[in-house]
């Protein structure tokens, strides 16, 4: 038992963090939200070059083999930088296609970052179907390549473009590896949410250290301190759940990680918004990019109640 990231994993996280910091992701998010995905596509390619998508693709299809721990490490950083796009969905699509007759057709392109994929699960919305090259729909009869997508709906997180996929389309397989793919989707969402929460905490700590009201930095007020301490506790206890779930991949562990990481991120978002006051409530201030994402990830790929049912074994 050595439940610690090794030096290589830490270096991977650090390099991704450095690259995303230099890439000015907030402006990429704003472009994406406005419906201008060019900068987002460019960033996607650079992310792919670090191997993120290849971590969800077997080596025989030009991937690095499915490596859930490294995938979780990467998604924490993607969430920390509020990277837009169908990140979880591309990983999920890779998992759905691996081992099917269509793996060769799609997986190398996904691993290389040449194509984005999105997935709609049982009639739910597909994320960023307006930009994704491949749009998959999952239904009881199997996995299909959707013939198209409806109009983009306005969303509380403007960087998430939700769309209903058109019915029908090419039937790719009647027996996709559904449990495995949902497990990876939840794990990636959990890691992404954890990263969102960590970024929200960092930004809020920096803000309350310098914001002066009543003659003192507001970070010196005990009520402010204790709310941030609670956010820190929630995030630090979600983190080992995410990494533990990446190691075991059991449904209960993954559900627990999804639930706790998303709850911690959302709690931190509420705290971040409150402690920033009105400025946090504005779309033009960058904090909003994480705030709205924290809310959206709560229900993506498994609601709190669905996750709890998996933990209790009553799902």
């Amino acid at each position, binding site marked *: 038992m050595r439940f610690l990231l090794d030096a290589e994993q830490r270096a991977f996280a650090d390099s991704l963090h450095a690259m995303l910091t230099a890439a000015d992701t907030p402006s990429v998010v704003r472009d994406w939200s406005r419906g201008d995905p060019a900068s987002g596509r460019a960033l996607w390619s650079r992310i792919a070059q670090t191997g993120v998508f290849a971590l969800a693709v077997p080596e025989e299809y030009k991937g690095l083999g499915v490596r859930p721990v490294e995938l979780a490490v990467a998604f924490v950083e993607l969430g920390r930088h509020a990277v837009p796009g169908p990140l979880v969905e591309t990983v999920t699509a890779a998992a759905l296609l691996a081992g099917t007759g269509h793996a060769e057709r799609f997986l190398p392109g996904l691993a290389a970052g040449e194509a984005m994929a999105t997935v709609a699960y049982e009639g*739910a*919305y597909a994320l960023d179907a307006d930009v994704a090259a491949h749009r998959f729909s999952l239904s009881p009869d199997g996995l299909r390549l959707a013939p198209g997508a409806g109009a983009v*709906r*306005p*969303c*509380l*997180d*403007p960087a*998430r473009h*939700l769309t209903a996929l058109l019915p029908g389309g090419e039937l790719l397989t009647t027996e996709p590896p559904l449990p495995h793919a949902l497990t990876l989707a939840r794990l990636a969402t959990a890691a992404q949410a954890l990263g969102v929460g960590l970024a929200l905490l960092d930004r809020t700590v920096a803000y309350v250290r310098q914001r*002066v*009201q*009543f003659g*003192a930095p507001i970070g*010196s*007020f*005990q*009520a*402010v301190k204790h709310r941030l301490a609670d956010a820190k506790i929630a995030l630090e206890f979600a983190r080992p759940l995410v990494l533990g779930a990446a190691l075991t991949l059991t449904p209960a562990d993954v559900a627990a990680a999804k639930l706790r990481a998303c709850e911690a991120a959302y709690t931190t978002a*509420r705290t971040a*918004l*409150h402690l920033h*006051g*009105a400025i946090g*409530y*504005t*779309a*033009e201030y960058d904090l*909003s990019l994480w*705030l*709205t994402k924290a*809310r*959206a990830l*709560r*229900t993506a790929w498994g*609601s*709190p*109640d669905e996750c*709890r049912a998996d933990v209790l074994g009553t799902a």
Partner: protein
Amino acid sequence: MDLAFTQEEEAFRAEARVWLEAHVPSVPLPSLETEAGFAAHRAWEAELAADRWSVVDWPTRYGGRGAGLIRWLLFEEEYYAAGAPGRVNQNGVSLLAPTLFDHGTEEQRARVLPSMATGEVIWAQAWSEPEAGSDLASLRARAVRAPGGWHLSGQKTWSSRAAFADRAFGLFRSDPDTPKPHQGLTYVMFDLRAPGVTVRPIGRLDGKPAFAELFLDDVFVPDEDVIGEPGQGWRIAMSTAANERGLTLRSPGRFLASADRLHALWQDRGSPAGAAHRVADALIGARAYQLFTYAAASRFLAGEPLGPQSSLNKVFWSEYDIALHETALDLLGADGELADTDWSERYVFSLAGPIYAGTNEIQRDIIAERLLGLPKGRR
């Protein structure tokens, strides 16, 4: 002690209900935080005012019915139960108007209130500044004496409704040399389209321009638009702030209607057991808030001052409102992500509740110090 309303009160309620049934738009108006929605909500205020439903508790000479507090509460219950539109002139009606009633001149009331009641003039508030949010006493925007009035300069921000409103009210520092920061402030009304005013809309979380920054550069305001004595603005504003978190900012009717809609949503979704306790708590909370308000109104009508009790009120409704709308979005599942629903519009609106009108930290300090008698000082 009783909860029964008089025959006359019940008749008033019935009259309101009938009118609302006939007039409430069957299709919801566009969001009032958009230009088109603002105009539609302004037109709705005119429709309300035409039949004297826009400010039922005001004296008739300003456009009201002199209906009093209890009928106002009943009207609000009917109004929100009918699913009627949000009130675009809330700032004017619940903040500026009470101030004018308490501190304005009859000339000011006669000039300002009727056009407020009809929605012809929509008012924005202009309290906050970049360095003065919760700490309102540290305001810097200036009012400098000029012949027959004052020149306003400086910056205001988080000015609700200012993106599309006509006029605004706020505090300006008229005497920079007072020993304490909350002295030397003057309460002023001004025109958002006056020379020297620049309005920069700010988008809230969902991108809608729910508030604005105001840049003021030697904006002339005549003496007749100063409320109360110059230099007494703080005291006057605090009576308004007490009002803001007091009885009339958030009527129980809003939350009773929201709780009923949440209950219906839960039933529509098959009454999921995992959400049952949150839905029950929403129903109970709305009832608690209604009865708390009835008790406060009864005390008020018996001549007791409300005072710091209103801080209990503010913390309760602001946290309640968020919890209710979070539950709704959770029940909506994937649809909870959509921005173009009533639920999401109200969710975003609710998120600001613990911040404005005195943050909930300030309210809890007030509760602890003024209601419980705990020592002041350290925070």
